[in-house]
């Protein structure tokens, strides 16, 4: 086996996966091209049935592609599974793995053995991770007695047990309440901060999660990547201009003077919001060609002796991006997927 050349942590080329189904086969992945450099937290955002889980199962060596190639840590997912499995781990949402009769501590130790940790080393690491994910109080509690959130923390600890170089996270906050989901996201953030150079691929259909955690996001639907970029880049796709709302104490020359400033596309009195032409102040909506133009606006206001009371940027969400690309929301059911019919090729 030749050692792989340094390259992306995760790579897919023309990846296709077709499931046999009646009456017609289902195209789960339809020519996916992807490159995730080492150290990145990459998100796959899409609705149920988009092909996210299929992609993650191929990358974690659980599923063979119908055609195309995929490499993880430089190793081929079809022929070099052993090497991939030594450096990665996976955490899925709603996962019920392990054996309920064991305690939290025993269960984690059992999993440590599958990665070759020595007996004492396994117990030590188990205790470290239990503390890390905040399950110290449940250490000696049976796994069967854990709440959904605690269970997912345990799954998370299992995912870290072998100190993976590449971590696959398949809907890790699925079914968790707001607080538990926030805890889980915090752990990913802490892990990234503590372990630079480690890569994670996250699938989710929670847009805020992708926005909050990921360096880059691919929007997936019907087995295809429709758009790829940083969350900010993606959002800029649907918003060609930058929108700001400013609140000032007064506007002696009206909005016309603002509209004439370089980079300002429009300046209108806001139709809603506090302080709209009121004794308390004035709120103006600004459309700028780029964020940089804001500096000129602020400088002009200062020169006119106007006091700036508030400033907020209005941004589209990733859901807006999805709607723009697909023509429906993330949570709207895709009838073709529900019926198990092959999805039509998106235009």
């Amino acid at each position: 086996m030749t050692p792989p050349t340094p390259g992306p942590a995760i790579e897919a080329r023309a990846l296709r996966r077709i499931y046999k189904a009646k009456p017609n086969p289902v195209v789960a992945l339809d020519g996916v091209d992807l490159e995730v450099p080492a150290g990145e937290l990459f998100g796959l955002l899409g609705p149920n049935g988009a092909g996210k889980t299929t992609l993650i199962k191929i990358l974690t060596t659980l599923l063979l592609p119908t055609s195309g190639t995929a490499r993880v840590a430089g190793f081929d997912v079809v022929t070099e599974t052993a090497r991939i499995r030594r450096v990665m781990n996976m955490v899925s949402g709603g996962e019920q793995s392990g054996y309920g009769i064991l305690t939290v501590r025993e269960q984690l130790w059992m999993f440590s053995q599958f990665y070759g940790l020595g007996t004492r080393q396994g117990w030590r690491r188990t205790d470290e991770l239990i503390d890390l994910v905040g399950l110290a109080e449940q250490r000696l509690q049976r796994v069967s007695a854990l709440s959904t959130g605690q269970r997912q923390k345990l799954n998370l600890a299992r995912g870290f047990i072998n100190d993976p170089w590449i971590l696959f996270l398949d809907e890790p906050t699925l079914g968790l309440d707001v607080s538990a989901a926030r805890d889980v996201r915090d752990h990913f953030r802490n892990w990234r901060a503590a372990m630079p150079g480690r890569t994670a691929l996250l699938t989710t259909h929670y847009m805020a999660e992708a926005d909050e955690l990921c360096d880059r996001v691919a929007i997936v639907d019907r087995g295809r990547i429709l758009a790829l970029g940083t969350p900010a880049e993606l959002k800029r796709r649907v918003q060609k201009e930058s929108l700001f709302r400013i609140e000032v104490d007064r506007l002696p020359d009206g909005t016309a003077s603002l509209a004439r400033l370089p980079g300002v596309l429009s300046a209108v009195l806001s139709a809603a919001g506090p302080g709209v032409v009121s004794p308390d102040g004035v709120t103006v909506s600004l459309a700028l060609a780029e964020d940089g133009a804001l500096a000129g606006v602020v400088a002009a206001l200062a020169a006119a002796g106007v006091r700036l009371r508030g400033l907020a940027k209005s941004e589209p969400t990733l859901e807006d991006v999805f709607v723009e690309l697909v023509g429906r929301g993330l949570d709207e059911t895709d009838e073709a997927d529900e019926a198990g019919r092959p999805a039509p090729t998106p235009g």
Partner: protein
Amino acid sequence: MSSSPYARDPAAGPTEASAWGFRRVLATNLRAVTGRAYPRVRGSLREKSWIFFEIALPFLSTCAFVLVYRALEAPEAYIGFAVLGGAMTAFWLNVLWAMGAQLYWDRGEGNLEIYFTAPISMMSILVGMAVGGLYMTATRALVIIAMGSVLFDVQYAIDQWLLLGAVFLLTLVALYGLGMLMASLFLFWGREAWHLANLFQEPVYFLGGLYAPVKVLGPLAALAIGLLPLAVGLDAMRQLTFTQVPDIGVLPPLAEAAILVVMAVVFLLLARIALRYFERRARAEGRLMARWQ
């Protein structure tokens, strides 16, 4: 190496981290055996109800056969045959349900994905299941033998302890080899394999000679000896345990020990081949994923 509690791997990168030598591969697989055996051993110590379900209830079946033999005034050795058969039934049931069907359950719970994405051979998981299962099953078998022997005053006449021990171990290896083979069938066929196991259970009770010597099956005895490790092992063990009863075996114990060696090798080999084949098929068809996905 970072001092972060997340950190464990001192390798410079994934390429170095994935380059394992033979010793590390072997050590990891041996640890996986321990890891997989652990919940079975731990569970049996923690959940005491199994003593009732796994020992007391099966012992009743053995008692029923003993009482039938007594009522029919069968030779006293038949009481011993039934007790020995009752003890060995435990291993057969363990192989059929706790070995064969386990991977089916594991897939439903999501454990299968973890086994397959861990850097270990599935054979280690199966061996771990066997070792863990043996702990509980051997206890059950020993208790049935001890209780049966005391209650029914079974008279043993053993001349070749070493051969008896070897035959017993070979029977277990062949039997659990068959269990591993069945596990890979379950992995692939799932629910259909469940029916297959149901189909096997009673015929093996009949052909395995669990409560009567295999020889009484007549022409079917050869079939049983050729196919079922349980039948061969029991036949040999009865000959070695009740030497006072002449001419009860289908073949001499040494010949049956040789058959067991062949069976052990063949079943283990077949299990390995089947696992590789079915893993490939299962990866191609998406059968390794948990049902809820």
